[in-house]
């Protein structure tokens, strides 16, 4: 098999108002089986997808936010969240789900999957990818 490609999934939309957040997560989960080098980027309103405390019973739609917590088990642990996008929305890291993974190269130590990056850093990360998928 050829070298793994660097896949970046870009999320810029809020959850629930449209289906893109949910359906893009489905791509990530299926894609995990292909053993490529996967990263996720959350910027602009996409950062809202990762906020804690989502309760959808009254609305009558499925709460899919617990699925983000499973990403670590699928070897998806490069989750880039843009600082400026959080700041513009009055959010901090504390408002976000604690996403973690177990690092097999470090005695399965539990580590944070979320990496806070600036827009400039995210631009470089985007440029370094092979395939960029937007939803």
């Amino acid at each position, binding site marked *: 098999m050829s070298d793994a490609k660097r896949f970046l999934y*870009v999320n*810029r*939309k809020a959850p629930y108002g449209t289906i*893109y957040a949910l359906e893009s997560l489905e791509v990530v989960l299926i894609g995990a089986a292909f053993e490529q080098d996967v990263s996720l980027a959350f*910027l*602009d309103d996409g950062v809202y997808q990762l906020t804690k405390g989502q309760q959808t019973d009254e609305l009558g739609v499925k709460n899919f936010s617990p699925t983000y917590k499973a990403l670590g088990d699928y070897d998806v642990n490069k989750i880039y969240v843009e600082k400026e996008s959080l700041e513009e929305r009055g959010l901090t890291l504390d408002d976000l789900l604690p996403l973690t993974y177990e690092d097999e190269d470090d005695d399965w130590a539990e580590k944070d999957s979320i990496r806070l990056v600036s*827009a400039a850093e*995210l*631009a*470089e990360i*985007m*440029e370094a*990818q*092979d*395939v*960029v998928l*937007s*939803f």
Partner: protein
Amino acid sequence: MLHIVNKSPLERNALESCIKHAVKGSAVLLIEDGVYGAMQGTSKASMVETAMKEDISFYVMGADLKARGIDEARVIDGMTVTDYNGFVDLVAEYDKTQSWL
């Protein structure tokens, strides 16, 4: 990277976000409603003009300009009007694409 923006900069923040994340040497192609971002004299034109000075090349889809009745003379100076053949060539030329939806 070739960035593709298909929404008007006055409707969505896609063009602004795209420009914030485009490194020097990138290209931005405006298609569909994104072509309104190519017009001179909008409140977003200076954002585009500044990006052009930062070594980001801008292209705009002629077919979408024509559909919307936008005269090419109203396109920001330095922006290249292209067609679908040009679009294909741009995709081939840049190592990957990113659509700002």
